[in-house]
């Protein structure tokens, strides 16, 4: 399976993601320039962290108009796996591939620290190598990670089990103190209804080797390998969604 890492002007975790995929997971990985019109046959597209277009206007707001993002949108609509990390998550929200929006962190501070997140659903393509309730220690580095969705949207995503990760304490308890950026319902990562698009604020690529202090992030990439390299077993909810549409 082949990964594609999208590069925008201002991306700064693109090579971290490339390193994790190419050198740690040992899978073919290509860099995709935002002005291109071709995903180069990638089976999974990764939108890395950074400050695409300087975060001017709003985080992710300009990046979504890139030519390549139109390809990514079509790819996702056809069921292609898309992973958005930090700024990549923000781009996916602006692009409308994931519900909700990002606000500035509740204390108006850029947060750069390790946090704990709990796996809420271990049946997704991005978490199937993990266990439900498993606590992952992964770093965050963002100013705008305060997840927000209107009450009705929040109800919908909770009901359809789209919350994949929540900020928690080291024991896996979701507490207000653990929710460092003030996200609604402690949301750290969500998937789309079909289950092929995931966005999360923490950086799994920065926690994929013991040398970096944590290997907990690797489980997300390993889940993708399981999903794409083994016979497909789609998410039960995703399957029922497809039948309805």
């Amino acid at each position, binding site marked *: 399976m082949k990964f594609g890492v999208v590069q925008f002007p201002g991306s700064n975790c693109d090579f971290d993601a490339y390193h994790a995929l190419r050198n740690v997971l040992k899978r073919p990985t290509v860099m995709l320039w935002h002005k291109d019109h071709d995903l180069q046959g990638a089976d999974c597209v990764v939108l890395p962290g950074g400050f695409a277009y300087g975060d001017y*206007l709003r985080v992710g*707001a300009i990046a979504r108009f890139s030519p390549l993002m139109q390809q990514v949108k079509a790819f996702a609509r056809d069921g292609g796996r898309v992973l958005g990390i930090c700024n990549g998550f923000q781009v996916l929200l602006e692009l409308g591939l994931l519900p909700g*929006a990002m606000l500035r962190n*509740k204390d108006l501070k850029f947060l750069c620290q390790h946090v704990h997140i709990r796996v809420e659903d271990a049946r997704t393509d991005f978490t199937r190598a993990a266990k439900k309730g498993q606590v992952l220690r992964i770093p965050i580095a963002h100013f705008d990670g305060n997840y*927000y969705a209107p009450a009705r949207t929040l109800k919908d995503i909770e009901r359809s089990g789209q919350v994949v990760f929540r900020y928690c304490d080291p024991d896996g308890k979701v507490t207000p103190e653990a929710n460092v950026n003030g996200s609604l319902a402690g949301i750290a990562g969500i998937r789309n209804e079909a289950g092929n698009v995931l966005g999360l604020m923490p950086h799994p690529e920065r926690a994929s080797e013991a040398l970096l202090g944590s290997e907990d992030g690797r489980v997300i990439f390993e889940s993708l390998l399981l999903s794409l390299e083994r016979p497909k077993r789609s998410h039960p909810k995703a399957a029922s969604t497809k039948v309805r549409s």
Partner: protein
Amino acid sequence: MKVRILVSFKDSVLDPQGQTVKNALHTLGYAAVKDVRQGKVFELELEGATRTQAEALVPEIARRVLANPIIEKFDWEILKGR
């Protein structure tokens, strides 16, 4: 024609920057300030657009690009021209 577009958070969305400004004003003794909402201002120069065209164009630009309708609202006015 010149238009001004004002983008700000919806009333239902907490504006932590506005709250911080409010707190600072209170610290300075401006007790009369009940609330502060912070927003963004855009001034657009439109070439050869009539008022009717601007009334279609400006809200489209505001909704599609300048504001995120999930969290923000906008107002606009014509500054110059007709």
